[in-house]
């Protein structure tokens, strides 16, 4: 019987011009949006896209389709019952041996079948570009599923008002009113405690998750309630129609069911907060954490506090909350707190926050600051906070070196603070007193000794390197002789003089002895690092052929730089006759080799810098120097200390459609199909009248 009614309703829908006009309009608007989006996508350089073409189209097309649904569905639902009450045809149904649930189900089924077709339009448009790219099908199907749920929900609400209102206009208006309310509620709240609740009621946020390829229990429950509640209420009203008006008792009886229904809905929503699940259906798992991060989070065993200094901006804070939620799902120890830097500037200053939107992570008394929010940066920050309990960064002391504990201008004490804030343990090491380099040394820093190391000390360093120890060697002017034995051992030579780099002039630097580095090679030590760095009074290195070490030039100066051997005074220029070489000159070398030990094979890492001034207290704050120092230290100090989060390789980041294909898709979807639907809107009623 349900199918009899559904078939009848669907037939009446398809013989009415309204359904074809809606189809034509939808097809026209969606394909217009589709072609515009494709055009924009091709206009940008490929590979730089924030989103793949599938997600971009899903967001735009299903977004537009949802707005169109909002405006068309009440027109369609009004026909289902309200209009039948109005013109008397409802009596045919009401006199027939049918239950209220049969009538509601039949009518709903018919409308839903039509809405499936409407929802398929954007999906088919998007799948048409499968000709030119590898579509993210998981994402597309999830987005389509979300669209179906939304349409089903809108249809249920419309049908409820169609059942309640005897006046068709009233039914349409009431549906619009409720749907608009559910659309705008999330934007109305100002106080933050209500905000979350209001946002829960708003459909757009839930739909967005589907369009991002995420299937979350909270969104599913929202839409399932949006579908089931109105349908149950409509059935209840239709079956109680007429009875409830008679006495006070029957009125109370009538109201009992809706109350019970709303209570159980609230209960379901409440429980759903406790038992959540989430599926990421995108091809590249864009919404999920990488395995590395998940393993990292398992190591957290006390609360990790994340404080965001984001201003009170709904969209910004929502993004942060959503992002942190990925971590919170894996690790409930993580707590997120917002501090508005505008209203609470003292807090921000105390915490050393310089930029709005910065994050501060606190774990077991240590802290980390974070300026970019992505998985790589956050996971690495957590990793640094976790620290490695038994490994040390030691700086050699006793020969006039730059040391971590020293407080002179050329010393590294400020860098030391940065190291500690990032979870490193550090100390100075005087070989004359300790006599050896401890086994738990993760990294040894030799900061340009002024006097030569004793034979014994050199032997200790040599042993350390033989044991596979990691080393940061800062070769300063004046320390060449002291370091020569170590450089020899590492098979690295030096160019005489100091690097002069005129390229700094363009950046407003009036001191040509500061070398500027802006581009970095693709190397694990520098992964994710892109800031400008400045190297005062640096020396150039020269790698010799080595069969032991794998050498990589980490930092390279500009083409116009050279190593000036003359005095750095007055007018200076490149003198090709002397031992001066033009750039690019090597400023830093990374040396690696595989080292076999009892614990197994690991990589030994050494970085030789042509100068340590960039890390000194005087210059550390300049440009990206501190960050570079931290990056290098992290890479050097241990294998495990830096997570390399694999970058997403989207399959659909490029689109290659032939002109013919474009033409067929564009012409077909923008002109042929809308015209076809439009002509059906005219032809079908005309044909039926002619019979």
């Amino acid at each position: 019987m349900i199918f009899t009614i559904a078939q009848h309703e669907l037939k009446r829908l398809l013989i009415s011009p309204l359904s074809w006009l809606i189809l034509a309009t939808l097809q026209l608007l969606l394909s217009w949006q589709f072609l515009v989006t494709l055009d924009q996508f091709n206009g940008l350089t490929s590979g730089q896209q924030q989103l793949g073409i599938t997600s971009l189209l899903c967001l735009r097309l299903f977004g537009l389709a949802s707005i169109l649904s909002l405006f068309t569905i009440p027109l369609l639902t009004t026909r289902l019952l309200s209009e039948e009450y109005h013109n008397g045809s409802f009596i045919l149904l009401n006199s027939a041996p049918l239950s209220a649930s049969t009538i509601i189900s039949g009518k709903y089924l018919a409308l839903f079948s039509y809405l499936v077709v409407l929802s398929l339009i954007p999906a088919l448009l998007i799948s048409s570009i499968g000709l030119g790219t590898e579509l993210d099908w998981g994402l597309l199907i999830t987005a389509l599923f979300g669209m179906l749920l939304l349409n089903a929900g809108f249809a249920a609400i419309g049908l409820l008002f169609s059942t309640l209102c005897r006046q068709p206009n009233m039914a349409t208006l009431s549906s619009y009113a409720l749907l608009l309310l559910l659309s705008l509620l999330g934007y109305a709240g100002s106080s933050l405690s209500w905000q979350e609740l209001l946002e829960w009621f708003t459909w757009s946020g839930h739909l967005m998750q589907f369009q991002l390829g995420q299937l979350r229990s909270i969104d599913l429950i929202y839409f399932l309630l949006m579908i089931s509640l109105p349908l149950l209420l409509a059935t209840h009203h239709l079956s109680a129609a007429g009875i409830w008006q008679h006495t006070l008792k029957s009125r109370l009886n009538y109201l009992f069911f809706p109350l019970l229904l709303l209570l159980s809905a609230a209960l379901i929503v409440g429980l759903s907060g406790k038992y959540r699940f989430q599926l990421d259906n995108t091809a590249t798992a864009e919404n999920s954490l990488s395995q590395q991060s998940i393993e990292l989070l398992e190591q957290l065993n006390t609360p990790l506090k994340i404080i965001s200094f984001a201003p009170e901006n709904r969209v910004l804070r929502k993004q942060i909350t959503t992002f942190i939620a990925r971590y919170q799902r894996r690790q409930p120890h993580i707590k997120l707190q917002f501090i508005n830097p505008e209203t609470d500037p003292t807090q921000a200053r105390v915490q050393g926050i310089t930029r709005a939107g910065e994050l501060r992570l606190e774990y077991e008394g240590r802290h980390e600051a974070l300026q970019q929010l992505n998985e790589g940066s956050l996971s690495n920050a957590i990793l640094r906070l976790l620290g490695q309990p038994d490994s040390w960064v030691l700086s050699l002391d006793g020969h006039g070196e730059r040391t971590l504990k020293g407080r002179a201008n050329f010393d590294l004490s400020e860098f030391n603070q940065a190291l500690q804030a990032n979870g490193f343990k550090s100390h100075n090491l005087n070989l004359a007193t300790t006599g050896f380099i401890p086994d738990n040394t993760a990294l040894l820093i030799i900061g340009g000794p002024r006097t030569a190391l004793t034979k014994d000390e050199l032997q200790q360093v040599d042993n350390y390197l033989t044991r596979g120890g990691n080393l940061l060697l800062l070769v300063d002017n004046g320390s060449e002789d002291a370091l020569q034995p170590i450089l020899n051992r590492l098979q690295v030579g030096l160019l005489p003089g100091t690097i002069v780099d005129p390229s700094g002039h363009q950046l407003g630097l009036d001191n040509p002895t500061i070398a500027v580095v802006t581009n970095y090679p693709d190397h694990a030590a520098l992964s994710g690092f892109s800031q400008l760095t400045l190297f005062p009074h640096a020396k150039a290195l020269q790698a010799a052929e080595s069969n032991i070490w794998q050498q990589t030039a980490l930092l390279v100066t500009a083409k116009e730089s050279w190593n000036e051997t003359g005095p750095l005074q007055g007018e200076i220029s490149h003198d090709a006759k002397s031992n001066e070489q033009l750039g690019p000159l090597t400023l830093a070398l990374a040396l690696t080799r595989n080292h076999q030990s009892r614990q197994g094979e690991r990589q030994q890492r050494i970085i030789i810098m042509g100068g340590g001034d960039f890390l000194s207290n005087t210059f550390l704050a300049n440009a990206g120097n501190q960050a570079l120092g931290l990056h290098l230290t992290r890479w050097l100090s241990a294998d495990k200390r830096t997570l390399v989060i694999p970058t997403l390789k989207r399959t659909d980041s490029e689109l290659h459609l032939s002109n013919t294909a474009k033409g067929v898709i564009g012409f077909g979807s923008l002109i042929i199909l809308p015209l076809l639907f439009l002509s059906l809107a005219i032809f079908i009623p005309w044909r039926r009248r002619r019979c």
Partner: protein
Amino acid sequence: MNPLLIAKNLHFFYTQQCIIKKLSIKLNRGDIVGLLGQNGAGKSTCLQMLSGNLYPAEGEISIDGSDLLKEPEAAKQKIGYLPDEPPLYNDLWVDEYLTYAARLHRIPSSAITTAVNRVKKQCELNSCGRKLIGQLSKGFRQRIGIAQALIHQPDLIILDEPTIGLDPVQMRELRDLISMLGSQHGIILSTHILPEVESICNRVDILHQGEILHSEQLNQQQGDQLTIQLAEPPAFEALSKLPSIKSAISLGERRFLLQPANDATNQEIAAQLIPWGLQVLTPQQKSLEQRFIQLTSGEVQQR
């Protein structure tokens, strides 16, 4: 045999106002009951309740043993109902509409075409199977409405002013159809056309302000009063002592007003009067109308 329809003590209120009061109706197979009443007397409300389209505040309705209020689906299967406005879809063809009505009443698919053709023939709709209902005239629409009520051959047929909008020829054809159907089904119809009631109904219930004021059996063979004219009238006593006559009044000029005995038919009376040269025998048709006006206006005067 169980009565086809038993409605007991029905009440209906509309915004605190009592529309139907203590209404009880009983109907057997073969009965054609006319529900007579002024506009606003509650005829349509009453029929809506009997068809299951309105829910009474109080009372019971049973259709051939099925309780309409407690098991409406079983009961509604036995009812065919034509409301005051036929329940039509203007955008459908007549055939499509009747097929849908047949399906809704659970007629098996194999029998649907036969059923549609049958009602189209009964209601003279053969010519307009593929016409849009919205384009048809009032008379056609009314007949489609009737066809819809008959399609599943219901035991009880409820017709709310069935002849409205029909021309005199169609009206007579419809009355014939109703008389014919009345032999196998129970029919209850509302109208305010008195001759219609008298010509087709075998019972009339007069409804006034939500109550049944008067219910009486009608017999077309047995007119309430007869006016006769005789060529050779006998003595007045001889006439009044005839077995089939209860009483007689002399109207002068060989004319008499007779009140027939309860079970006497007009044929019997005529046969007995022929020896005296029966010239005219006219049933007193005004009687129902008189009673109707008397009952309904009397009530008005009392208020």
